[in-house]
C-alpha cells in the first residue's frame, strides 16, 4: 500500500508540474477559441435496463419499448447503446418464447427482428456503464460498444430498474450512486462529449438520482420524487408478471402518435404526465438547461433529424485530357495479351500522346509517356513475354536451391 502511494505520489507530482506549466502556456490559446457555439449534428441514445430475473420483466419491456420508439423516430443502431440483461425472451418461464410484450393485448412484439443489444447479461455493470459514458475503453472494444458522441451530439440517457434514495441498483449486486453519475456527466461535459443530455429515469425515487448534477446542458426527468415509489401499469395474467411501468407506459403513449416529421415540444411531453395516473409525481429539473422547453422538439432527443447542407456544385477536377489518361491507364492494367491490342493502334495513341505531352505537367504523366514510348519500341510482344518467362525460370531454381 505504501509503495503504491509513493509511486503514485511521485507520478502525480510530475504530472502536476507539467500541468502547471502547460496551463500557463495554453490558457492564452484557450481564451481565443473557447467561445464557439456548436451546432447539433447527431443524436445518441443510451438505454439501460439495470435489472435481471423474470420478475423484473417490466424493466426490460420498458427499455425495449423505448428502443423501438427511438429507432422508429430515426436514430440508427450504430448510435444506440442498449444495455440489457436480456434474460426474458428466452427464459424458461416465458410462455411466449422469443417474444417480449409491453401490453397485455400482445399486439406488439418488442423482441422483433432488429434488436441489437450491445451489452447483455453480466456485461451490464456499473463499471461498463461508466466506461460507456466517459469513453474509457480498452483498445479492443469494438465501435458498436462505444459512445462515439462529439460536441454536437444530443444524448438521451434512459435508465430503468430498482432505485432508491441517491442510488440505482445494478443487476441486484451493485449500486450506481448519484454523485458518481454526476461526476461522469461532469467528465463528459469537460471532454465535450455532448451538447445536450436528457436523462430519463423510471425507478422508485427517481428524482434523487440526478439531484447532484451540476453540468450545464443537462435536462433530467424522473418518474417519482424522493419518498415516492414508481408503480407498474398492469399485470399480464397470461405472461404472469407486470409488463410495463406507468411512467414508461404514458411516455410511449405520447410517442405512438408521433412520427419523424412531428415537432411537438418537450414541454408537451413533460406536461402530459398526470400524477394521479402515474400514482407518483414526475419531477423534472431544467435549471441546468439553457433553452426553453417550448422551443425544443422531442425529436431533438428521441429522433434523429440531421442538419443537411445542399452541395452547390461539383468540383471539376478532371479536364478532358485527364479523362484520356484515366482510360489509357486502365487499359494498361489489364493482362498481358492486351498489350498487343494497345500496340495495334499506334497511330491513334501517337496523336493522343502528343497532345498530352504538350499540355501535361506533372512527373507522373512524363513517366507514363516514356513508358508508352518504350513499349512502342518493342516490336514483338510475344518475344518480349517469352524472354521474361525464360528469365524467371533460373531465378526460381536459384531461390529453391538456396532454401534447401
Amino acid at each position, binding site marked *: 500500500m505504501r509503495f503504491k502511494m509513493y509511486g503514485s505520489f511521485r507520478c502525480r507530482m510530475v504530472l*502536476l508540474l507539467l500541468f502547471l*506549466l502547460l496551463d500557463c502556456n495554453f490558457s492564452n490559446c484557450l481564451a481565443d477559441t473557447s467561445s464557439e457555439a456548436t451546432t447539433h449534428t447527431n443524436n445518441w441514445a443510451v438505454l439501460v435496463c439495470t435489472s435481471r430475473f423474470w420478475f423484473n420483466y417490466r424493466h426490460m419491456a420498458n427499455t425495449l419499448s423505448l428502443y423501438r420508439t427511438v429507432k422508429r423516430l430515426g436514430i440508427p443502431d450504430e448510435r444506440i447503446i442498449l444495455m440489457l440483461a436480456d434474460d426474458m425472451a428466452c427464459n424458461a418461464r416465458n410462455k411466449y418464447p422469443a417474444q417480449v410484450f409491453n401490453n397485455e393485448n400482445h399486439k406488439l412484439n418488442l423482441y422483433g427482428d432488429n434488436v441489437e443489444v450491445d451489452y447483455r447479461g453480466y456485461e451490464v455493470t456499473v463499471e461498463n456503464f461508466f466506461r460507456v459514458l466517459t469513453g474509457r475503453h480498452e483498445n479492443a472494444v469494438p465501435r458498436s460498444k462505444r459512445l462515439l458522441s462529439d460536441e*454536437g451530439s444530443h444524448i438521451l440517457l434512459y435508465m430503468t430498474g430498482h432505485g432508491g434514495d441517491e442510488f440505482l441498483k445494478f443487476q441486484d449486486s451493485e449500486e450506481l450512486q448519484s454523485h458518481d453519475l454526476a461526476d461522469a456527466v461532469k467528465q463528459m461535459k469537460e471532454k465535450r462529449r455532448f451538447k445536450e443530455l436528457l436523462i430519463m429515469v423510471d425507478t422508485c425515487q427517481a428524482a434523487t438520482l440526478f439531484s447532484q448534477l451540476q453540468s450545464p446542458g443537462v435536462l433530467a426527468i424522473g418518474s417519482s420524487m424522493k419518498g415516492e415509489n414508481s408503480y407498474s401499469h398492469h399485470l399480464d395474467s397470461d405472461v404472469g408478471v407486470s409488463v410495463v411501468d406507468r411512467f414508461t407506459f404514458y411516455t410511449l403513449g405520447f410517442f405512438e402518435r408521433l412520427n419523424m416529421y412531428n415537432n411537438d415540444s418537450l414541454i408537451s411531453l413533460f406536461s402530459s404526465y398526470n400524477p394521479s395516473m402515474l400514482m407518483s409525481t414526475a419531477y423534472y429539473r431544467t435549471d441546468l438547461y439553457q433553452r426553453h422547453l417550448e422551443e425544443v422538439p422531442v425529436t431533438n432527443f428521441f429522433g434523429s433529424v440531421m442538419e443537411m447542407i445542399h452541395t452547390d456544385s461539383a468540383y471539376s477536377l478532371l479536364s478532358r485530357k485527364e479523362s484520356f489518361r484515366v482510360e489509357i491507364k486502365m487499359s494498361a492494367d489489364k493482362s498481358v495479351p492486351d498489350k498487343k491490342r494497345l500496340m495495334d493502334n499506334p497511330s491513334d495513341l501517337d496523336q493522343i500522346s502528343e497532345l498530352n505531352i504538350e499540355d501535361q505537367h506533372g512527373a507522373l504523366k512524363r513517366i507514363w509517356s516514356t513508358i508508352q514510348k518504350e513499349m512502342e519500341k518493342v516490336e514483338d510482344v510475344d518475344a518480349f513475354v517469352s524472354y521474361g518467362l525464360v528469365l524467371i525460370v533460373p531465378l526460381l531454381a536459384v531461390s529453391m536451391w538456396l532454401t534447401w
Partner: protein
Amino acid sequence: MLSAQIESNPLLFPCHFQAIFVGFDSKPSMTPDALGSSILSQMTKLTSKPPQCGTCSTNYSIAVTVDSSLGCIQTRNLEDTSSWRCGSMGTTDFSDDEGVDKALADSLGGKVYSVVVVHGDREEVRAVVGKYRHAWVVGRVSEAEAVARAAEIFVKVFVNGGKEEGLIHGEFMPVGADGKIVLSFNLLNSDPQDWVYDWDFQSIDETLLSPVIEALESVANISVESQVLYHTPKSSFSHWDDEQESYIFSTKDLPFFVNSNEWHLDTSIAAGGRSKILQIVVYIPSARECPLLLQLPNGEISKTNGFISPMWGGVIVWNPKDCLKDSESQHPLRRTISQQDLQKVFEVVMGQFRQLFGLKSNNVYVGASGTSSLLASERGFTEWELDVLSRQHTCFNLHSCATTLGSLSRLVQSLPRMIIMDEIGKQVMYSLEAATLARSNASLGLYDSSAVSSRQARYLAEDAFFHPSIMSVSYYSFEHCFAVYSFRCMSS
C-alpha cells in the same frame, strides 16, 4: 523547458506576401514602397480584430515589385529578394488559365503568397486564383482598385480560405481523435427488383482518390472502404411534378432522407475506436421514383442532386439513364455505372468532401471588390487551401489537446487517492513535446509539419485521458470507503 516558450498571443502563423504590378507604365508615381504601405493598410482594415487562431500574424511582410518597360523596381527592405523575372509576363496569353498558372508557378514558386496585377487593354477585369499560392488580376485596372483587389485576395482568400470569419467551426473538422478518417463509400440500390447497379470502384480509388488522400496527408490519415448495398429505400417522400417530368424531393425532406433503419452503413472493420467515419452514399432510386431530383427553396432544380450532413458524410442521388426498366425479363437488370457517369458522380463527391472540411464546393469567390474565379486542382485541394486547412487544424488540435490535458489535470487533482500509471505520465509528456514542436513549427511557418505534430499531440492527450486504468477508481467515493471500512471495524 516549456516555461521558456510562454507566448502571449493566440496561435498565429507567419505568412509572407508579395505583389507584382506589371504594365503600369504610365504611372511613375507608383513606387513599390508606396504600394506596399497602401496594400498593408488595406489588409489591416480587412483583418478581423482580434485575429483568429490559425490565421496569419498581423505584422504582414509584403514585398512589392513593379515591372514596367523601364525595368523592375522592388521594395528595398527585404531579406530575400523576389524571384520574379522582369518582363516575363509580356507574351503570356491570359485566356488560358491553366497555362498562366503553370507559368507563374515556375517563376514564383515557394511559400510566398503572390498576386500579380497586370494592366492590360481589356476593359473587363478578371481575377483568378491559381492552384498553387498565387493569383493574378488582368484588365484595365486602376492603381487603387489593384491595391484593393490585392489586399482582398491576400486576406480573404489566402489567409481566411475564402470564408468570412476565417475560422472553421468544429463541425467541419471531421478528423478523429487518433488523426484518422475512414471514407466509406456506399452504393445503394434501393430496389433490386428494378435494377441492380455495380461500380468499378477500384479504378476510381487509384486514379481520383489517391491524389486527394495524398494531398491531405498532413491533416489526416485517410483510408477508404467501399460496399454495395441492396434493398435500401429512403425514408422521406417525393411527389411527381409534371413540369419537370420527374419526382421531386425538396430541401425540407433532406433531414429525413437517410433511412437509418435499413441503411446499414457503419459496418467498417478497419475503423478504430477513435477514428472518424465519413459516409459517402450514392443512392439509386427505384423505378417508382425515377428520375428523382432535388428542388431547392428558390424553385430551381439542383445541379448536383447531392447534400451533406456535417461530421456524417454526404448523399448523392444518381438516376439511371432514361430510367429504363426491362419489364419483360424476370431477372433484375444488372448493370455497371459507366466511367463517365462515375467520374461525374465523383466530381460531386469531391465537392461534398470539400464541404465537409469547411471549404466551398464551387470555384468562385465573391468579394467586396469583385469576383475571383478559383482554379480547381486535380488533388481536390489547392496548395493555398491545404495551407489554410493545415493552419486551422493545427489550431483546433492544439486547442483540443490543451483542454483534454486540462481536464485530465483537474481530474487528477480532484481524486487524491487515484493511482496514475507511469504510462499516462509518459503519454502526457510526449503530448506536450509534440505540442511544443507544433508551436515551434508554426512559428517558422511550416504549416504541414505543425499540423502533423499537433495531430500527434491531440492523439496522445486523448490516449492519456481515455486510459482505461483511470476508470477503476474514479467512482470509488470516500463515503463508500468509510461505510465499508467502518462496518468492518465495527463487525470485527
